[in-house]
């Protein structure tokens, strides 16, 4: 059962990721990325990380992708020409580089997968909201508060960058 669910979600994730980078319409790319994020959230559920699966859907597939879609609609981007109209040497180089990096990742991961400890069934139940909150508000409290400052700084910085006339507002005051 778990294997079937994993295969289904993995095929969906890979297919939508490929569709995302090959689609020439930007809005379609963004919607395929939403589907990809949702299927990765399903994989998180298989790994017993319920809290992060929900956060993934709420924050990534919800908030961040809505922001992306807003920017796409705002900028009114014209479509690129199709990726396959003519063969470019760039694509071959990119593909070869991708294969090299894939080999590197597999090589580095190959050494660690046989060093895993024996995990009992109650050790696996770590992804619940209760378990995460208990660690969050004790051991990682300072870092948790720091993320609030980080997000505030990001919002202020984004407002400053995307402001229409930055220089004028400084001179008129």
């Amino acid at each position, binding site marked *: 059962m*778990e294997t079937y669910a994993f295969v289904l979600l993995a095929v969906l994730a890979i297919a939508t990721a490929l569709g995302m*980078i090959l689609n020439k319409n930007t809005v379609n790319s963004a919607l395929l990325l939403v589907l990809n*994020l949702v299927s*990765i959230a399903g994989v998180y559920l298989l790994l017993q990380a319920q809290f992060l699966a929900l956060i993934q859907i709420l924050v990534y597939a919800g908030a961040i992708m809505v922001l992306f879609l807003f920017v796409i609609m705002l900028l009114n981007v014209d479509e690129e020409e199709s990726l396959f109209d003519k063969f470019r040497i760039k694509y071959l180089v990119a593909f070869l580089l991708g294969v090299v990096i894939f080999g590197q990742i597999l090589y580095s991961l190959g050494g660690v997968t046989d060093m895993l400890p024996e995990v009992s069934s109650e050790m696996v139940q770590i992804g619940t909201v209760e*378990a995460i909150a208990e660690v969050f508000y004790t051991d990682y409290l300072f870092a948790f508060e720091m993320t609030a400052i980080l997000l505030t700084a*990001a919002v202020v910085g984004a407002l400053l960058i995307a402001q229409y006339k930055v220089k004028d507002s400084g001179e008129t005051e």
Partner: protein
Amino acid sequence: MIGIDWYLALSAILFTIGIIGVLIRRNAIVIFMCVELMLNAVNLSLISFSAYHGDIAGQILVFFSLSVAAAEAVVGLAIIIAIFRNNLSVDITKVNLLRW
């Protein structure tokens, strides 16, 4: 539970697709979405290691990575808007102010 190898392989494949997307696309927004895909692939490998070690620290790290990704998306999209306003394009081959 199925082996951890499958989750790590899925993570590696998604990361590679993200890298190829960054290299072949010219639209800045799609490149940005490919970066998000790569961040997600790394999150997936963190969560699978966390589950198979029985250690919650990996999931905490994913939470921080998510909040940093949100901040990064906001600032990056603001930069894209600023580039579009000066250049009327999000095609990165036409942005050559800092290019040697």
